[in-house]
């Protein structure tokens, strides 16, 4: 590769290894993988640490990707900004689906509710903006986790405890489910957080294609699902509104 800068190539190789399966590696492991002297790898790591692209774990002394890099990759969008940009679409989803709508962002493996539209039936409802929903037991959370393997690892490491008999508590099953969510573009929770309740959600993406949030509906299973599972017209409403918000954020050029 003529004209390339060797140290940047090496730094990129280190970052690539740290973004791999193991996530956390020591200097020796990295040096071994790359076939480089430890001193060289250590020097590069120190520079990457200075710019915030890697962090050193205080206990183990091992290295992992830094917050600055993660923010770049996940393309952080202010939750208040997201609410403002999504306001009309969230209203229109609530009106079409006739269910309550929530928009969530990822917060320490959970879905932070940044916007909530009441179900349009004038029943008594309370705003739950600011609430944290479990990432692995809600549709909003599954969409957010599906696009963030680091958060998924952390959630699984912290342990999956059941809220109902239907909650996914098996790590492999959850990983498989999140994989499917990522591929098909929407998530469902069928009585996994609260018995008798279903939620559906789809990802909101920004102009770089990074998932910055999720929008979804929730309600009783009788209204949201039939014998075959979540009702397909509701899934399409949710996905259409997610695409509409994404389009406003510049994600989809058409």
């Amino acid at each position, binding site marked *: 590769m003529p004209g390339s800068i060797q140290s940047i190539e090496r730094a990129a190789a280190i970052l690539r290894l740290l973004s791999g399966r193991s996530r956390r590696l020591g200097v020796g492991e990295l040096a071994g993988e790359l076939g480089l002297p430890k001193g060289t790898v250590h020097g590069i790591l120190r520079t990457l640490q200075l710019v915030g692209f890697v962090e050193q774990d205080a206990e183990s002394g091992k290295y992992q990707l830094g917050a600055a890099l993660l923010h770049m990759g996940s393309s952080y969008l*202010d*939750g*208040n*900004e997201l*609410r*403002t*940009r999504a*306001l*009309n679409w969230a*209203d*229109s989803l*609530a*009106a*079409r689906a006739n269910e309550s709508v929530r928009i969530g962002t990822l917060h320490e493996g959970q879905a932070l509710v940044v916007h*909530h*539209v*009441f179900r*349009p*039936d*004038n029943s008594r*409802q*309370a*705003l739950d*903006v600011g609430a944290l929903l479990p990432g692995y037991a809600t549709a909003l959370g599954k969409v957010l986790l599906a696009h963030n393997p680091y958060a998924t690892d952390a959630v699984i490491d912290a342990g999956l405890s059941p809220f109902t008999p239907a909650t996914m508590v098996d790590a492999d099953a959850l990983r498989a489910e999140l994989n499917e969510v990522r591929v098909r573009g929407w998530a469902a929770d069928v009585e996994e957080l609260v018995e008798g309740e279903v939620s559906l959600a789809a990802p909101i993406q920004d102009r770089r294609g990074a998932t910055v949030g999720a929008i979804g509906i929730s309600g009783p299973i009788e209204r949201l699902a039939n014998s075959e599972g979540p009702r397909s017209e509701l899934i399409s409403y949710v996905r259409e509104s997610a695409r509409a918000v994404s389009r406003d954020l510049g994600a989809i050029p058409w």
Partner: protein
Amino acid sequence: MTNRYIASIDQGTASSRCLLFDERGRIVSVAQKEHHQIFPKPGWVEHDPGEIWQNVLEVVQEALAKAQLTLSDIVAVGIANQRETTVVWDRATGEPVQNAINWQDIRTDHLIHELASEAGQDRFRERSGLPLATYFSGPKIRWLLDHIPGLQERAEAGDVLFGTMDAWLIWNLTGRHVTDVTNAGRTMLMNLQTLEWDDVLLDALGVPRAMLPEIRPSAEVYGEATGALAGLPVAGALGDQHAALFGQTCFAPGEAKCTYGTGSFLLLNTGEQPVTSANGLITTVGYKIGDAPPTYALEGSIAVTGALVQWFRDNVGVIGSAPEIETLARTVEDNGGCYFVPAFAGLFAPHWRSDARGVIAGLTGYITKGHLARAVLEATAWQTREVVEAMNSDAGFELKTLRVDGGMTANNLLMQFLADVLDVPVVRPIVAETVSLGAAYAAGVGVGFWPDIESLRENWHKAAEWIPGMDSAVRDKGYRKWRKAVQRTLDWVDDDDDDVTS
């Protein structure tokens, strides 16, 4: 049965939009086009009426195309419009005699002072409901008659016609020269009791009756469109803030809405009789449906609300976008004792003090940008409280709930604080586009698409509700401090400041 829809034209200050609504009041299509803001001199603001008319035709066609609908799917069209903006055009050719004078234009300032010097700012309040101010159309007509050679004679002969944007669009659509009563009420030429042009007001401003449109209800079939929209009944028109009141279904006395934008407009339904304000509010026609008696409203406008957030973003620069102010404000627990009174161009309702200028009061070394962000947001809520208190006092009853719409309703911290300081629930409807919805409702009722206004209430649904939760001692102390801060804005402008402030 095929689905049928109502088209709503919102001819606003910045742009013209067309929204299509279904029978349940849900939006099915939106199209928008901005028009040029023309600034011939400092303080002057004009629009090209021809450009606006072309844009309106375009957005209607675009809204239809986006929803894959044709004119035959549309039952009727309604119009909501920027208020007071003044067009005079040639009856024979349809050509405007010059650009429209925008409501924000202050070229009539001297004329207003002349008119007020004899009997004060409230000279026409009893008849028109309005204080003497540069916004209203009558003085703008007078300015045109004074400055365009020969226009007075042509106006007296009925060869040129006046209209606000509703009348300009209805004339172009149908060929009829009519205006809706809520728009007529903003000219300072209409008698608030008779809802007719008032001879005393016409004489005082020297406006010939022959150039004025016929005043009609807000909802009735004004005529059928010809040309590009041929066959479409034009069946509703309301000034934008009146349309928002109607779209929020504030049909009963005591129901009120506030639209939070750059500035904010609070309108309170006061029933079938006009209430003259003793507290500097405007008395206006809320709406009039067909032959039914008119519904009146009190209006309090707040000049600087969203504009203060924009100022904080653009002129101070500690936030990158308006929504980020909430993020910044949430970095602190409270305002730290800091109050921001944005009297950038003086104090308006209910104070009406042009000698005031903005202050940030209560500054100490403890205050951070987070506290300032809080103070910026709280200013909108405290100003609303002042207007609500004036309204409660004028109307003789207490506001029970405030219905809100507009961009700032996306700010949860502000909406909660608003509920806290008003001590009433604040509710946001599921259709945020209340201006367009109101015009659609008027047109739909005008053609019988909806049987009556009560049936429209079924379409109104809460999208969010903020319940007051502030301790009364905290609220009272906050309001006391706010009022002290307001006192500190007064008497700032001196006689020799004119050259720097205007």
